């Protein structure tokens, strides 16, 4: 039994090595810069994970989510979304505190108290109705606020697009801070609850994001590449807590001079 773990690690290392993207030659600096900007050295492995994820999605998660949206009326689905958000709010609270966001931490705290009681265990978002809308934070964002870079891109089956930093964050949030995990760490408690909760989380997330991701899929040729770009931009916005990017940091590209949207200059004859 003890020999299994080292063997698994060797296998994992072999898969990673086999699945490395080819770095462009140093003689093409623009291509090297683009390679670094894409920051996806495990792209071949990630694309395999993406294929597995899309397969699981088509065969299982999407049909379940689709049936759920057709069978369960919108108000009831909103209740489920609210209840899951309420159960996740301790994770948000801890990360608000770790990021030094006192006001946001207090908002999360009072929302948890009010929604769990008057909101009948989180089914109704009373906080939002009295002018305190919810927000989410996660440990990946906390690491970013503390200065950690996003790290190479990772595509996780079922969980979708991520990165090394956000993957670590996901582990800390779900195993360290999630109240449902804490509940199940006590072996006297009912164990299937955490699996039911995980299933509910997946179906809820799918049913609320399906329209947006379908749109991206339809408008893209390489859905994986489009998703990778959109995920990172969306995360950057979440890390800024929704604020517009600071002045001057709107996309400028290091392979362009000046405004990348400038009208075309007449080219010198070559």
């Amino acid at each position, binding site marked *: 039994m003890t020999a299994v773990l080292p063997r698994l690690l060797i296998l994992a290392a072999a898969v990673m090595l086999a699945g490395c993207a080819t770095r462009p030659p140093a003689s093409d600096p*623009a*291509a090297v810069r*683009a390679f670094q900007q*894409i920051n996806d050295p495990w792209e071949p492995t990630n694309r395999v994970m993406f294929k597995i994820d899309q397969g699981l999605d088509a065969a299982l998660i999407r049909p379940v989510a689709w049936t759920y949206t057709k069978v369960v009326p919108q108000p009831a689905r*909103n209740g489920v979304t609210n209840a899951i958000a309420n159960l996740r709010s301790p994770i948000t609270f801890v990360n608000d505190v770790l990021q030094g966001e006192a006001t946001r931490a207090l908002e999360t705290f009072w929302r948890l108290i009010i929604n769990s009681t008057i909101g009948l265990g989180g089914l109704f978002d009373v906080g*939002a109705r009295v002018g305190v809308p919810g927000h989410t934070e996660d440990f990946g964002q906390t690491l970013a606020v503390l200065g950690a870079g996003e790290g190479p891109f990772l595509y996780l089956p079922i969980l979708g697009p991520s990165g090394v930093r956000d993957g670590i964050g996901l582990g800390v949030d779900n195993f360290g801070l999630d109240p449902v995990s804490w509940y199940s760490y006590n072996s006297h408690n009912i164990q299937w609850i955490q699996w039911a909760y995980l299933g509910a989380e997946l179906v809820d997330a799918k049913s609320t994001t399906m329209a947006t991701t379908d*749109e*991206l899929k*339809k*408008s*893209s*040729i*390489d859905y994986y*590449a*489009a998703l*990778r*770009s*959109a995920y990172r*931009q*969306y995360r*950057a*916005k*979440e890390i800024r807590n*929704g604020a*517009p990017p600071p*002045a001057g940091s*709107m*996309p400028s*590209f290091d*392979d*362009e001079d*000046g*405004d*990348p*949207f*400038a*009208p*075309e200059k007449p*080219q010198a004859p070559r």
Partner: protein
Amino acid sequence: MNRRRFCLISATALTCPALAFAQEWKSDPSAFVSHFAQVGIVEVLEAKISQKEKAERFRTLFKGLFDIPAIARFVVGRFWRTTPPAEQEKFLKVFEDVIVYTWNRRFSEYNGQTLKVESTAPDGTDGSVVNSRIVGKGSNDSFAVQWRLRNRDDGLRVVDVIIEGVSMAITYRQEYATIISQQGGMPGLISALESRARDLAKEVG
């Protein structure tokens, strides 16, 4: 001042504000975005016409108010300069088609949403970014849309639309860079886009 000149001045003073007001949207960033939304809602989204007519009306609006060549050059990035002019033309055409048909698919989902301009800030050397929200009927279905505008000789043009932090231009650029380097360069990208445009056109009918 003679009488005739006085008349001319007062006539100009009376008519000019009205003229300036009618044309103001062409140079005022927030009025420009509101104009686009208003025309889009009245003449495309709420118009009682077929999907195909909606697509064509939207194309006219889109071509008039967006700087499509600048966006196309941006999304192709460093590969643009090495692309022969004939291929650049082909790309421009198919890129426009894909965007028109992609937006067109969403028109049937329109359910009375409105656009509210919230603020405007300078962007780049001579541009602006307009921050707005699309507001729906429910309390949860509102989302942030930023419009990046540039001043051109004959008025403002949109160069990018950023929805909830996700820029269309950057997403296309990063996706297309991957396709160009992995799937047969610009010819590969163009033929993939052409077949996608054909599929989307069939949905429009």
